[in-house]
Structure formats: structure tokens, C-alpha cells
């Protein structure tokens, strides 16, 4: 048996000009983050990701 979750979550905001546009700073901030890896065993109640 399998459970498939499909959901909408914020992508995060783009960094402002002051925060820079290059390198690591180009990543969106405040968006969806995964807390698991492929093949990882999880228990009920464990975080799969967070906003």
C-alpha cells in the first residue's frame, strides 16, 4: 500500500536586490523545504518537510 500526497506550498520569495542575486543568495527564501531523502524510512508524525 502507498500514500501519495500532492499539495500546494509556497515557493518562497526571491531575494531582494540588497541581498544579492548571485550564488547561494539566489535561492528562494521562506518556501517549501524537504526534510527527508529518497528511500528514507519514516515514522508517522515525522516531518516530511516544512514551510
Amino acid at each position, binding site marked *: 500500500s502507498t500514500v501519495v500526497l500532492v*499539495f500546494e506550498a509556497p515557493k518562497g520569495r526571491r531575494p531582494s536586490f540588497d541581498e544579492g542575486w548571485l550564488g547561494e543568495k539566489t535561492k528562494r527564501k521562506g518556501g517549501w523545504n524537504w526534510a527527508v531523502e529518497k*528511500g528514507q*524510512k519514516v515514522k*508517522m508524525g515525522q516531518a516530511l518537510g516544512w514551510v
Partner: protein
Amino acid sequence: LRKALSETRIKWYPIPVGLGIGFLGLVQFYKVNERERLRRDEEWEDDGYVKSTGSSGENGDRSPGGTPKRRERIRPSGPWQVQVMSTLPLKAISRLWGKFNELQIPYYLRVPGFKLYSFIFGVNLSEVSEPDLHVYPNLASFFYRTLKPGVRPLDPNPNALLSPADGRVLQFGAIVSGEVEQVKGMTYSLDALLGTSKPETSPNPSDPARIFAPKSDNHQQSTATHKDGDEDVIKQDEEFAQVNGISYTLPNLFSGPPQKKPKKAQDASTTPKASSEAEVRADLALGERPWYARLTSEHQTALFYVVVYLAPGDYHRFHSPCSWVVEKRRHFAGELYSVSPYLQKTLPGLFTLNERVVLLGRWRWGFFSFTPVGATNVGSIKVNFDRELRTNSLTTDTAADQAAEEAAKRGESYGGFAEATYEAASPILHGHALRRGEEMGGFQLG
């Protein structure tokens, strides 16, 4: 032989005209028949069905218009294991397996039997709520066991999405162009997984046979009403439906005023408690800001997915991963292939073939769907707040066949699912409210 060949006198006779005409007619008949068969096969594939051989016969048991009369079993392509599996009556096997596991085990064999099962499949018996294994009369009840309170603490982060069950994360990621990537790069359409925006409604919720009834007139009236309304809103609706494959209106999706839906509520067996409803309402932050506030660049959203596989030894009840409102459910009475990681690698679109219950709704960030997919050994999906739902049932299969046949008579295509809404559960939330970590249902053997 030489003498016979050389000395035998050859005498020629004219062939009877009737015999020649008959031969030519037979050849022509064969040619026409073959041409007709090829044409029907092409129509068959155009309708989205895979040609089946055997009992359906050359005529394919279809109406004159070429639409299939019966909900045809899809024969997936793949390696020989998949081909062999596709020939088996998997749902019948699953039901038989369920009946077998409901047989009562002799009292003194229960503990050694369950301990052997636990040893093989890695069940942690210290977490089982019932310490005395004699209490479980059969494997089915042991399989659907509960856990001790507190052994599965919820993640403290209120913005976290929780794992709905014990299992293994097979795949996760973002959805691009409406397609969900499966293991080994196989993809399947979100429309195929969750259903398209044209559902089959249930005119009489109390009658299981009517679950697969055709689309009601109310739905058509509703569509007409929408078309008479604001053109821009309709365009936005349509655009979003194309992206996500689900008929969600923008105001509804972005926590604005919900649209009035014409469909009747299927079941509201357990009305949520006032406290849970208030909690979910607070979490969803309904009405605190207008829907268009979410459309700014700061709040752009995307669709994500995650697939959690439950092994036979895992705890087989599933819980709500977050606070959300279930607005509708769609039951796809498909097949029951195994969903083992091996088959997921070898059989593309496995989740779109199997029987599944798609629960659609919204959480604080927008659209949310929860889809338990059945398998051969665990074909029965139970949803606690939906008493009408019957999965892996001969009745629903027959009803689905009847609905497909009726749709064919009307010249429509069968959507492949039965839909019900939970509007009656909460007049404020227009759905069934679920708190994070709340038990939603589970998978049962057979």
C-alpha cells in the same frame, strides 16, 4: 512413380463457376473483416482503452458508436512479470486473501503465529497497543492494529508536513507540467492520478449502486451559471484547472469565499467537534486576507508531491499530515497490482491503474490531496469519516461497469471515478476538518 507420371493421361475439366465465385467471395469477406477489425482497434485505442483479447470477442462488446460498453480492464505493457500479473484476477485474489485472513486462528497458535509474522516483516511488538497478542483473533485484526499512545510523537514545528504513516519515502519533488515523476524517471499525469474536472456525481448517497451514477443535470446547470458570470474569473479557473488538473476555483483555492457546489454530500458520519473545527479554521486563516494577496510574487506557490510506501510489517493506519479540510473524495475502482518498489520501477503509471481513494481539499497554503493507493494484499481502504465508501467490493465494480455502460449509451466517456463531497460535515468550512496527526483511516487486508 515415373511410369505413372509419364503414362497417365491428363484430362482437364472446367472449374464450376459457383465454386470460383464462392472462393472469391470468401477472400473478399476475409479482407473486409480484417479491415473492419483494424478500424475498431484504432477507435478502441483512441478511446484510451488497451485492446483486450479473449472473452470480449472480435466485436469488443461495444456500442455501435465505438464506445466501450463495459469498463474494460487495462492491460499494461511491461516485462513478462507484469504481463503475467495482468492476466490474473487480482481483485478476486485480493478478496479471497482478505477472507482467508479473517479466519479465526486457534488460540494457542496466535502468539507464535504473530511473532513469526513480526520476525519476518519487522514488526516492533513493543509498540503495539495490546500487549496480549491472544486478543487478535486473526491476521487481519493484527494487521490493522493500533499503537500505544505517545509512541509516534508529532513534529513540534506547526509549519511541518507530517508523515501520514510509517513507511519509506519512495519519491518526492515538485510537479512540473502537471506530471508526477515516478521511480526510475517514469512519469504519470496528475489528471490520471487525481481525476479530471468532470466527475461522476452521486444522486442518491445511500445507495452504493448509485455511486457510479452519471453526471447529474445540476452539474451542467452549474457549469452554465459559471459561463454566464465574469469572463475573467472563468478564464482564471480554466487556467488553474489546466495546470493542476483539478477543477478548483481561485477564490476557493486561496481561502476566499467558497463557491457553492451543486453536488450532494455523500456522508457526514462523524461531524467534527467544534474545537477541532475552530482549530482548523484558525490554522487555515480563513478570511484574514483576500485571495489575491496570495498572488503576489512573495507568495507564489508550486505543487509538490511525496510517495510513502507502507511495507507489510508497518503500522497500516494513516493520519492527517496537517490541518486541512477534505472537500471531496474520488474513488477510482481500478485494479490491484502490487505496489512493491520493484513493480513501481517496472510498471509505469502504477498508481493510476490501481484502486485508490483521492481525498481533495485545502490547507493553509492552498490545494491539498491525500491519495491512499490499494495493493493486492491490502485492497481495502478505509476512511473513518466516510461510511459510504466501499473499496475492493464486487458491488462497486459492478456499479462502475453499469455506469460505464450507461455513459456509453449516452455517447459520453466514463470518468473512471465516483465522487462525493463532504459539504454537510461543516457548513462553515464546506468540508470535513482534520487536525494534524488525527487518524483518517487505514489499509486492511484483502
